[in-house]
């Protein structure tokens, strides 16, 4: 178990080291997420007053779109030097490789969310921090569900020519439940007064989704990565 955890961290640390050196994924995803929120702000904020109930949707769309960008780039890096083959021949458990890549993507998406959540709160006058704990739990559970499925698909598609097109085509239908749950849970928190039981119900759904898809991904990663 210790060796497994160490292997996960070695892979994550390598991804973070490359990212701190290039800042390629961080800059592109942050820029994309900010642009996304700003464009929606121009559309949905009239005379300084945002339309009702749009903040939750915009927040989760920005997370999903920038997440897709990060997933594609994270594996493109492994494809360019065919380093994925070197990792696959190494004596680390394939699930450790999967979790290492997933953890790296989660850390990057967390950095993106730290910037866009306050921006959405500001632009759409949304009370995202009134119930900060449950909001953070929704973000963590939703991002984990989205990234867990996305990491598996991005790894599967790394050798295909049309991977940039295929990733969203495969990913979005399967992660629609995550996005809906994230949006509905966040919207429940933004109601006046906040509907906390409803927010907790959507959070439970997200946790259930996370457990199911993490289990499936860990189970299928090895056969999926064997040609």
């Amino acid at each position, binding site marked *: 178990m210790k060796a497994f955890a160490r292997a996960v961290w070695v892979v994550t640390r390598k991804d973070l080291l*490359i990212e701190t050196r290039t800042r390629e994924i961080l800059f592109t995803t942050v820029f994309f997420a900010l642009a996304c929120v700003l464009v929606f702000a121009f559309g949905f904020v009239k005379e300084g007053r945002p339309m009702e109930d749009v903040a939750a949707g915009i927040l989760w769309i920005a997370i999903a779109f920038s997440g897709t960008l990060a997933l594609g780039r994270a594996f493109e*890096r492994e494809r360019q030097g065919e380093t994925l083959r070197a990792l696959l021949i190494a*004596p680390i458990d394939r699930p450790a490789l999967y979790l290492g890549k997933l953890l790296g993507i989660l850390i990057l998406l967390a950095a993106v969310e730290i910037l866009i959540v306050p921006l959405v709160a500001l632009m759409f006058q949304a009370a995202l921090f009134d119930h900060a704990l449950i909001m953070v739990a929704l973000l963590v559970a939703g991002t984990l569900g989205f990234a867990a499925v996305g990491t598996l698909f991005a790894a599967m598609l790394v050798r295909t020519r049309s991977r940039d097109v295929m990733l969203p085509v495969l990913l979005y239908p399967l992660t629609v439940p995550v996005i809906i749950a994230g949006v509905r849970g966040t919207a429940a928190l933004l109601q006046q007064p906040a509907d906390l039981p409803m927010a907790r119900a959507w959070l439970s759904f997200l946790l259930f989704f996370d457990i199911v898809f993490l289990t499936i991904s860990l189970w299928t990663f090895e056969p999926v990565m064997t*040609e």
Partner: protein
Amino acid sequence: MSLDFNQLRIVDVSRTFGRRRALNKVSLTAGAGTMTALLGHNGAGKSTLLSIAATLLQASSGRVAYGDIDAATGGSALRARIGLLGHDLYLYPELTAGENLEFFAKVYGLDGIARRVAAALERAGLTDRRDDTVAGFSRGMRQKLALERALIHEPRLLLLDEPFTGLDEAARSALRDRLRVAREAGAIIILTTHDTAAIEGLTDATATLVDGRLAA
């Protein structure tokens, strides 16, 4: 986790990709301390055979035995005894030479990483470029580093796909010397090449693949 073998046996291995047959009943045996060259034109099946021997690809039929074990039962312990240098060099250009070697040493769960990395850089003649990112290296420097990356865990089976490509004479000579050292240390070396001049006097056996079959 400890596993070793002293012979690689490829027995009647075939591999198809859709309707195309890349390998057709190929058999090959190589022992410890030997170097075997796989020759053949592009598309003859050399890289496919190396990928199967590296456990990255499954044979459609036939058997690959590493001593008494096969890829399915050997798992990660078997992979720990295999080194692979592909045509792509499996290096991260954003990392330094030292970081690349250190990363792979950690991935292989090795001990004495600092000592191993220093020794590998010394052998590659890259000690003074340790902290330079690989993106700035020439093809020859990358090739030397990649070979040390493939050898850092002292593999029993070393698989090299076109290792002489793009090297000048000095680098080819250094590579030949490094391969001799690995062979003398007991490695089973299988390399593919188009460059028969580069392997003259180096290999113990040659096998030529023609359209996925071993030529007589």
